[in-house]
């Protein structure tokens, strides 16, 4: 199995949960799941008109990784349009300023202010941490 991808910085999640086509004959196909970081890549490149270098810096990934995420975003949207599928926004490997993290080793939860560069547990310094999203939030 491929190693866990590095977390991508997303400034803000999309302001919608999904997109639905209308005025079409019924299509029995699954939704296209657009990851938060794919939305962000599309926004930075095609809406804010940043070059790949600046955009990748903003997201905290390499230029090559940015290009891959952006390409994936465009292909998914093209597929959704051509095959008349709904688009659904899904969390993916993202983190935002407001994201809190959970350390899998010591169970501590902590915030990640912008000033912190290395992603380690704020208590025990373990790298075994994961972002807390509404899917895995407990208590």
């Amino acid at each position, binding site marked *: 199995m491929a190693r866990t991808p590095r977390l991508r910085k997303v400034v803000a999640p999309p302001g919608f949960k999904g997109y639905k086509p209308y005025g079409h004959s019924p299509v029995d196909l699954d939704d296209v799941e657009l990851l938060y970081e794919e939305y962000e890549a599309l926004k930075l490149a095609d809406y804010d008109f940043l070059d790949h270098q600046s955009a990748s810096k903003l997201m905290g990934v390499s230029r090559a990784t940015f290009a891959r995420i952006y390409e994936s975003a465009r292909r998914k949207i093209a597929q959704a349009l051509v095959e008349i599928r709904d688009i659904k926004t899904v969390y993916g490997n993202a983190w935002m300023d407001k994201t809190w993290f959970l350390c899998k080793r010591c169970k501590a939860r902590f915030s990640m202010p912008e000033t912190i560069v290395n992603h380690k547990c704020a*208590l025990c310094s373990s790298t075994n941490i994961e972002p807390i999203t509404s899917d895995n939030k407990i208590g």
Partner: protein
Amino acid sequence: MKTVITSTGNTSESAFDKRFGRAAWFCLYDDALRQVEFYENEYVNAAGGAGTKVAEKMVELGVKKVISGDFGPKAKDLLEKFQVQMVVVQEDATVIQLLDKIRN
């Protein structure tokens, strides 16, 4: 870097305090000076807004990380704004146990 652990007492053997704004004491650890100091919380009996007052105090002292059991919404907002890292520990522990973890 300065870290604060909310504490129920003024010794390292005290249990850490799960409250932030109304914590009894604050344990201040400075890793550059390798010093541990205890400060009494002057806002423990404040009528309201203890969390905000304590958060402001943290920023004044130049604290970069706070370890407690829970943070109220106003304290959380302020600490986020001033880029102070918040750590929530849910199990019981003594101050020395938490200090050992951050000192590795």
